């Protein structure tokens, strides 16, 4: 028997696969294509206190092996979420991680309070890294003090595991992982998307209405893996890795680099039936390598240098 469970602070996940925020609606949209209780967790779409309309179209554009998005956090707000979505998610036995986003520190705290009182929330992911909105969010994520303050303030008002989600758009992501750890975070998750843009050369206009957007998908995977590797070496709390995972191999790569759990975003758009394939692939890998617990794979990258460099083909 292979043990796929992993531990994120006080939270035990049945397996390391989490649906990434913003790429899985409120979870309920996917109840018809995947058994939500079979996932390690479901990170729902980033929520503000209030409802938000988001940006006008175009909101996404495809790029080589990736995509840009500037959705602008369209959403139903925390109150409607708790009323309209959470009961259904509970019925579906999903492990719900709520991704929260505030314009001010107080808004994060208020969101955390509300969600801590709600029934069926497993953890809070602090979105301090969305590149697509002007107010709040990323201004915390790009400052070590801001990161520390948000995390420690939220920690004071909740019993739930708190997972700040880090932006890759910084010089030294490991410093942000350290600031999070010092502030009491139970884990960190990374990466959010890379600030990027695309231009329609015929009209000379940006392809996104918001001008810039966030790059996700396989294109960013090698950068994300490096950042997870750096964070893993910088902190003792678990690292949740993501960025371009599209196969079991990719998920395993992140875990070897240091991720205790992984999130999958863009690939779920390409293949909403990817989840059992990922789980099967991870199981098959562990069996082949005779590893009994997926947790034993975490951070096992071997950086000792080899003597000979023959390619075996």
């Amino acid at each position, binding site marked *: 028997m292979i043990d796929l469970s992993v531990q994120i602070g006080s939270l035990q996940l049945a397996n390391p696969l989490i649906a990434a925020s913003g790429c*899985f609606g409120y979870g309920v949209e996917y109840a018809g*294509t995947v058994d939500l209780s079979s996932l390690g967790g479901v990170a729902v779409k980033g929520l503000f206190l209030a409802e938000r309309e988001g940006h006008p179209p175009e909101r996404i554009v495809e790029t080589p092996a990736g995509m840009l998005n500037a959705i602008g956090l369209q959403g139903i707000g925390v109150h409607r979420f708790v009323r309209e979505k959470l009961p259904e998610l509970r019925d579906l036995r999903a492990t719900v991680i709520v991704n929260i986003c505030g314009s001010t520190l107080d808004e994060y705290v208020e969101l955390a309070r509300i969600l801590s009182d709600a029934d069926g929330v497993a953890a809070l992911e602090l979105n301090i890294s969305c590149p697509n909105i002007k107010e709040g969010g990323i201004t915390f994520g790009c400052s070590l003090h801001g990161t520390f303050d948000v995390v420690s303030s939220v920690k004071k008002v909740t019993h739930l595991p708190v997972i700040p989600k880090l932006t890759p758009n910084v010089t030294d992501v490991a410093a942000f992982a350290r600031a999070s750890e010092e502030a009491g975070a139970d884990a960190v998750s990374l990466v959010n998307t890379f600030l990027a843009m695309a231009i329609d050369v015929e009209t000379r206009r940006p392809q996104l209405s918001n001008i810039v957007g966030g790059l996700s998908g396989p294109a960013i995977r090698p950068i994300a893996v490096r950042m997870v590797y750096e964070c893993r070496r910088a902190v003792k709390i678990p690292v949740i890795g993501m960025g371009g995972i599209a196969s079991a191999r990719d998920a395993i790569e992140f875990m070897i680099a240091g991720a205790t759990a992984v999130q999958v975003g863009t690939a779920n758009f390409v293949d909403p039936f990817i989840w059992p394939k990922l789980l099967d692939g991870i199981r098959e890998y562990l069996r082949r390598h005779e590893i009994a617990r997926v947790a034993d794979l975490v951070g096992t990258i071997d950086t000792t240098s080899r003597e000979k460099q023959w390619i075996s083909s």
Partner: protein
Amino acid sequence: MPVDVEARVIRNTRLSSDYNVIALAAPEIAAATAPGQFVMVKPGRGHDPLLRRPFSVFEVLRANGRVEGLTLLSKRVGVTTAMLFDAVEGDIVSCLGPLGRAFALVDPPEEAWMVAGGVGLAPFAIMTDALAARGTRTTLFYGARTGGELFYLDWFRARGVRLVLATEDGSVGERGRVTEPLERELRSARQAARVAGGLQASGNDLTVDACGPGPMLEAVARIAAARGARSQVSVVRVMGCGLGGCYSCVIPVRDGRGGRHYVRSCIGGPVFDGAELVWD
């Protein structure tokens, strides 16, 4: 519930230098598709191109009474449509569906007027079959740039569909936009009805169903509204997922309180009531 099928290309027929009809062995999807629903397809492997693309189901293929697959009418505009154009028998295309809200089908004595602009013809073959099964009388207003881009005319004629054609260059049918004959006919149908006294001006004697370029849909919705006819329009948005996951495909819809909000067209549509949409 949608399914994903690694569908074999049964055949690929090029209709012009840009249009093709590709037949895919996805009987599970074909059998479950209602007119106006779509599939998300990805030909080829690898991450470039990365995302699937949405296509209306064009026809449901049957052989010996069994559903064997579906066809897509595709217009080559970019990378995926070029791959669909170039595909050969035996190639594999990932096909996810059926997805989205279908056209509401009208029953006799109500009539269905279908309005297609260019590749917007796509939902109306499967729709014709469904309406024929109900005995609903159908008219197809069909416009294109030029006569060489009007396809499947005999197919529709053979099924008793009345055709009203328009081309921008006047090579076939009326010169100009297809919304002109639509407006004219709707006006005279209303006058005839009023004269006959059989129907109110706002009567439910016909529904106008449209698919095509945005400005055409807007014109259709306005023309129908002005004459008190119901319209259903199938909109085209860039879609990342087709399942409501990404919020890329939104379109502004009236919220009933004088405001508007963005609705995901992949699950709230792609077919909307023309009166629901915000056109300005």
